[in-house]
């Protein structure tokens, strides 16, 4: 029997759903195994019911979102968080510095703050190839594993010259790999969109960034862009 799937967005830019839509010509093959019951961006008829797999995009920032999320959790077998907003709170969580808007929770967070998450697909936006691999795996009962190596490994593998050595700010040393060092490969510093590795050497990176003349305030901004809500235990030097 086909596995039923629902796709649900919360506070986000819906860019990750767009990656799924872009996959559609390839998804046709996956649709042999799965049946998409809920995907409001792409279809008129959407049924919220018990799903085998629920895919959740976006951060949680209102009480209503918590309720909806809890209901989705209750109704689904496997719950997948896609994109950094759903995993860590991502960009929307940067607002936690200031006051929220009316009706908003004190803090915007990833969905893991409120419900149990079975697996994460990281990145901003997600890599569509990775999404296809994970969803195909889940359809046949295989769970993906978390990556905990830094982007530097991928730069090494691809023989990309180190940007930090050239004086370009880069979060590669503390950021989870999996993107194939996409940003460094075009000469742009990694912005940390897959979240920090578990044993991230933040102190060393901060020192290096200061050495190449990056303003302290800018360094803080870099560290917090995608990891606003994980900083308290991870940003200890």
């Amino acid at each position, binding site marked *: 029997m086909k596995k039923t799937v629902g796709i649900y967005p919360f506070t986000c830019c*819906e*860019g990750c759903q*767009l990656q799924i839509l872009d996959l559609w010509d390839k998804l046709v093959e996956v649709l042999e195994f799965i049946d998409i019951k809920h995907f409001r961006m*792409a279809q*008129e008829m959407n049924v919220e019911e018990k799903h085998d797999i629920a895919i959740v995009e976006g951060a949680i920032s209102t009480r209503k979102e918590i309720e909806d999320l809890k209901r989705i959790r209750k109704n689904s077998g496997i719950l997948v968080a896609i994109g950094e907003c759903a995993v860590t709170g991502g960009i929307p969580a940067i*607002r936690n510095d200031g006051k*929220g808007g009316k009706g908003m929770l004190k803090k915007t967070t990833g969905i893991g703050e409120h419900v149990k998450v079975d697996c994460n697909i990281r990145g901003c936006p997600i890599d569509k190839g990775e999404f296809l691999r994970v969803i195909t795996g889940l359809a046949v009962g295989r769970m993906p594993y978390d990556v905990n190596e830094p982007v530097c490994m991928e730069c090494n593998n691809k023989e990309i010259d180190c940007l930090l050595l050239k004086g370009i700010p880069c979060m590669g040393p503390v950021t989870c790999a999996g993107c194939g060092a996409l940003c460094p490969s075009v*000469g*742009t510093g990694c912005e940390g969109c897959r979240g920090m590795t578990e044993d991230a050497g933040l102190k060393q990176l901060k020192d290096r960034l200061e050495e190449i003349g990056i303003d302290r305030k*800018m360094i803080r901004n870099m560290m917090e862009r995608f990891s606003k809500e994980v900083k308290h235990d991870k940003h200890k030097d």
Partner: protein
Amino acid sequence: MTSIKIDHLAKIYGHAGLELKIRGKRVERARVNITESSRLFENMVSGKRFDEARRLTSRICGICAASHNLTSIMAAEDALGIDPPEDVRRMREALILGGWIQSHALHLYFLALPDYLGYGGTLEMADDRPNDVDRAFRLKKLGNDILAAIGGRPTHLITTQIGGFTRVPGKDAVSVMLKSLKKGLKDAITTAGLFSSFDQPEYEREKPFGALAKKGAYPILTGTPVIGHHYVDSRDFAKKTITEDKNYSTSKFVSFNGEEFMVGPLARLNTSHRYLSPEAKACFRRSDLTLPDHNPFNANVARAIELVHCVEKCIEVLESIRSRGNCIAPDPRSVAKALKRGMHHGAAVTEAPRGMLYHEYDINGKGFITRSNIITPTSQNLYPIERDVKAFLPSMLGKPKQELILEIEKLIRSYDPCISCATHFLDVRFV
């Protein structure tokens, strides 16, 4: 009294609902209820360095990420007094045309077409209309490929910088783009023919148009904002327009001189049709449109004609770039060092696929943003949407509820509202 409430409109970007109150033959209330939570982007951007805003604001919207990214860069350049070389401007234009191609293809084929053909979604059409579905994917991919070749990836660009690019496509990549654009032109023309062939509901309501105007060109990245008959200086855009909060919406509503105005493809076609590319002009002539056109349903025809323009224009722009080497950006640290003391204020208005997009920044002497303001196309279109729903509804009364809802949804979808964009803003106040 009949009340109709749709909690979630399908096939638009983001969460929005609709609330209608009808008494006899009179429509008492038509409200677009925007329930998506706001994300306070203007707050987030303040305290960030001038070159961080482009990557943050890109995350306002996954569909027109490229527009936010470039508008943010251009506003920062305006503030810092940076005037990038002509080739950078052309490369950016080619890039944004790729963004338009993917956005228009997405709207036309995935959101609008199933309505016209009586399907629930594009995927359901795969068996009956394989040619349309294949063309949809080819056009979407064409736009994505241009974004990836110039911008590094289709969503949330990575090569774009203040003053230029970190990397530009090589000679081979450019010829691959040109080849696929030339092939894609036929698909775009077929699309324009397809959308011109559909019967649109007979409905008209006059309202001012808002679009950039540029002498001798169809407005894309640059031009002067014109609303109705009024020219507005880019830097004054926020001052001259009025933004209002509504208690039922987490998006703002924008007006000009107390009047609504419509932005987007139909507004642009009405004001700048003279400057369409040759093939787009031919498609326009073959369509039934006579200008001025005030039927919002025709926005889909206008969008399809623009798609042809984008493909043809993108070829022209790419071929006109003299030296790709000129496009490499200066080091942001040298830009930051060259900053003068005191405050820098800058703004930019561009045409995004859905209409005029405004970014404005105050940047201090150290290069950090102290205040920002962003006005998105969808918040400018909210008054026209609500008022069109209210004016169109009476002609639909007496039809079965399901049919009525579908027609209203089609009307709203013709504006291609992007709720993610509309709810990016600062603060929600309940009136």
